[in-house]
């Protein structure tokens, strides 16, 4: 458990590394994921939400690894900024989305008092990030102008996708990272290794 909630330098630097790296994943997903999103969306209304989860993974990774207040928000936001500044189809909107999605995940970790970081918290954080993304898009993407059926279906898919592609996948990534020993300066990394 983190002995204090103040961020150490290593927390800041590693959170930043994860944020920037996640931003690069976004840049890839902005093309591949968006193609999937659009294809799914064209076939059925709202099913495009299935692809959204990957864009929410920053918050889950940040929260699980750093375990400090603000980590989920910081990582997701930084990733969004990287994605926006390198250039994507959403421009400044990306940054607002990052803010909302990060906040969604952050709230879940906060609700558990920054004390529990298991697969349940990860999945809930991913789902909450999805819900936040859905809410923001009502306005930013003009989704309020879409039909109610669309919005209902979209909500379900985005939240599910967040729970799985961000929550579960993020949890698996963190576990794999911990197994490599790369997180040895973090409580998240020491949970899995034995003393030698």
């Amino acid at each position: 458990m983190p002995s204090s909630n103040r961020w150490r330098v290593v927390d800041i630097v590693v959170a930043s590394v994860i944020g920037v790296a996640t931003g690069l994943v976004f840049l890839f997903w902005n093309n591949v994921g968006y193609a999937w999103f659009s294809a799914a969306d064209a076939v059925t209304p709202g099913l495009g939400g299935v692809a959204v989860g990957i864009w929410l993974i920053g918050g889950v990774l940040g929260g699980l690894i750093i375990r400090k207040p603000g980590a989920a928000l910081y990582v997701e936001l930084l990733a969004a900024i990287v994605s926006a500044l390198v250039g994507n189809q959403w421009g400044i909107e990306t940054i607002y989305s990052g803010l909302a999605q990060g906040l969604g995940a952050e709230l879940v970790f906060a609700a558990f008092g920054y004390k529990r970081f298991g697969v349940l918290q990860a999945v809930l954080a991913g789902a909450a990030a999805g819900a936040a993304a859905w809410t923001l898009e009502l306005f930013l993407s003009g989704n309020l102008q879409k039909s109610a059926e669309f919005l209902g279906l979209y909500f379900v898919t985005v939240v599910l996708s967040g729970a799985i592609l961000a929550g579960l996948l993020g949890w698996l990534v963190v576990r794999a990272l911990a197994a490599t020993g790369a997180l040895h300066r973090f409580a998240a990394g020491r949970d899995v290794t034995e003393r030698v």
Partner: protein
Amino acid sequence: MVSSAPRLRFVDRVNPVTRLAALVVLTTPLLLTVDWLSAAVALGIELVLFALAGVTPKLLVARTWPILVSAPIAGLSMLLYGQPEGTEYWSLWLARITDGSIELAVAVTVRVLAIGLPAALLFLRVDPTELADGLAQIAHLPARFVLGALGATRLVGLFVEDWRAMGLSRRARGIGDHGVIRRVATMAFALLVLAIRRGSKLATAMEARGFGSDTPRTWARVSTVGGSDAALLAIAAAVAALSIAVAVWAGTFNPVWS
């Protein structure tokens, strides 16, 4: 973030933080409405301004093609599922193409361009160090976070270099023969691991140089704002105001909360 990018007139003289602010000022109002006119006005003026700054059509396509491709795709979703209104031309299950959805589709397509292009072009050529200096000195964001992020950006900037070095070492260790997919997957993960490890050590190195203590910090590089910055902000505000005003005047203004 690409330093080999071509120089732009005027834009390059503006502090990166001001560019970020200008981007917010210019495009946030456009997010509040889904109508083709405000977006079209903004897009038109933007294109002229960027042409004046030296963005050639070739450069435009080279740097913004993902946006150019995805704009019509965003429009398609609106075309099929936008709120139906007026004559219906075609329908299949939940998809309906109507007068209303056609108008929304056009609006969304132009809007994506008007919002996406300035972000890509204003940041065509940004040195992360300069951006960090600006964020800390001008925008007064916490220095620990700004510099931590800057250090991390540099590590990630080494990804290309690391990728090659990792390829060499895997080859030397006898595990370089895997097929492309497996290699790319394991190397991408290994790259993340490497960056995190480097990050952990970098943090120690930064602390060894007195970083993270409570002493107030000075800045060796000055980040300044001046006339050009004010001008860019003014232009951004003017473009935003003009495009919204035109839409309101023409009656197409269609706020997202309606």
